[in-house]
């Protein structure tokens, strides 16, 4: 039993060690260095980068990013659950529906975001339609605000919610639902008391797969937020690009990761209930 298991885990373990943990160790090393005169890293050793993290400026940015990610995840869940349910119950045609969900995401993310910009702009399609129909007199500022960012994030990460949900819902035993109906439960009650509890692994997996990228998102807030707001993903990106302050960027990254890990660990009670 153990031999098979060892062989199963070996490839992933070796990939993780060389391509994830080793680079992360290098990054950890960087957090203790100083920014070079023109960028990059240099000696002397210092803990100043970690001290900078406690600055209220950065804590506020982190808080905002959490809020945005949370809202996006909730909306994804609300929108994705019925969709995953539909696909799971759609019989032999379900693969086509699955592919239809994924297909938009095989075009470049950037391109789809630009399509949304095109739709949301002051002279974009949505505003033009609303003006033409006389519903509004002045164009609505749909772009370059938090709403647009959340819309972009939800749109971008919906399949990450739908796929794990589908994977669990597909396994749902239809006889359980029949039994609930026989016992007099209405559809809404069945959903609430049978389907949702049974699909908790999928909900957890999907929420995690959406929340975390949303937290560290860079392109969407950059393009749809118009640069007027700064979330944690952009902040980190800035450290490695325009600020060229690798040590602080590394400290920021590892700091954010630590906070999220703490959250994850506090939400997971037993080993078996974890996502991984």
């Amino acid at each position: 039993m153990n031999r098979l298991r060892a062989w199963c885990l070996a490839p992933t373990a070796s990939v993780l060690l060389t391509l994830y943990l080793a680079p992360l160790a290098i990054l950890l090393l960087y957090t203790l260095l100083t920014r070079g005169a023109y960028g990059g890293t240099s000696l002397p050793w210092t803990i100043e980068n970690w001290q900078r993290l406690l600055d209220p400026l950065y804590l506020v940015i982190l808080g905002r990013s959490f809020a945005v990610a949370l809202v996006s995840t909730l909306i994804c869940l609300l929108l994705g659950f019925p969709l995953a349910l539909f696909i799971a119950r759609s019989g032999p045609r379900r693969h086509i529906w699955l592919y239809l969900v994924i297909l938009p995401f095989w075009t470049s993310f950037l391109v789809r975001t630009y399509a949304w910009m095109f739709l949301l702009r002051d002279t974009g399609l949505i505003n033009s339609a609303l003006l033409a129909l006389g519903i509004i007199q002045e164009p609505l500022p749909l772009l370059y605000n938090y709403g647009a960012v959340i819309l972009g994030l939800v749109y971008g990460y919906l399949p990450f919610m739908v796929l794990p949900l589908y994977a669990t819902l597909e396994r749902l035993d239809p006889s359980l639902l029949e039994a609930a109906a026989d016992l007099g439960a209405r559809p809404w009650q069945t959903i609430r008391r049978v389907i949702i509890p049974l699909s908790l692994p999928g909900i957890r997996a999907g929420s995690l797969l959406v929340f975390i990228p949303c937290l560290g998102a860079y392109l969407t807030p950059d393009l749809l937020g118009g640069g007027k707001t700064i979330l944690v993903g952009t902040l980190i990106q800035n450290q490695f690009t325009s600020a060229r302050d690798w040590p602080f960027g590394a400290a920021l990254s590892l700091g954010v990761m630590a906070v999220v890990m703490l959250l994850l660990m506090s939400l997971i009670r037993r080993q078996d209930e974890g996502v991984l």
Partner: protein
Amino acid sequence: MRLLPAYAAAAFLFLHLPLLVLAVFSFNESRFTVWEGFSLRWYRAAFSDAQLIEATWNSLLIGAAATVLATAAGALCAYGLWKRASRWLSASLSLSLVTPEIVMGISLLALFQWAFRFLGVRLGMHTVILAHVMFCLAYVVIVVLARLRTMDRSLEEAALDLGATEWQAFRRVTLPLLAPGVGAAALLAFTISFDDYVITSLVAGVDSETLPMVLYAIARRGANPVVNAISTLIVFGLGLLILIAERLRET
């Protein structure tokens, strides 16, 4: 429950609206949002752009390689974890999920910098594929594991009782039941790989420009309908491929 199909239709419309918009305006004669007549000029421009074609090819190659590797390794890993949990492996995978893309990209860049110093390894297709396998792994494991957790362990035990080896039990009992989950995971992995910009742009070499990188550069300079044409082509091309694959599966 009756409303479900109607809701699904609305959801699919939401998902495909930007694509429809892109497709419609890829046939627009004008560069701008005013419709000036039907035209194929952007498609002609797309096909004559050698850089775009090479980038698309690179993306497909990288996506295919990374998907195969990540799905194989990840599915096996999920199975192993399902049998008995491994604290450090789960923790590392969780951590890799929590890592922002820019961080993973920079850390891999730092690693490849060292690799260059001591092994002379330059940035190129191989570094991109390795990076893609890395960031797809955790997603594959999560999806497959979620599916495994809804499965009955006693099925495998029954097979073992009937005299099958571990490997046979896995191959003939668990794997077929797992297949849709693995398929979903592979789909997710390909999507993530094909779409990635941040990490790829950092670890790509001179010869490994991918489609997102080219599109980013074009789109950064302002809306360009050539981008619309490419996207429409990709979606319809892949869509057709999938339809054919579905037909083949059903025969």
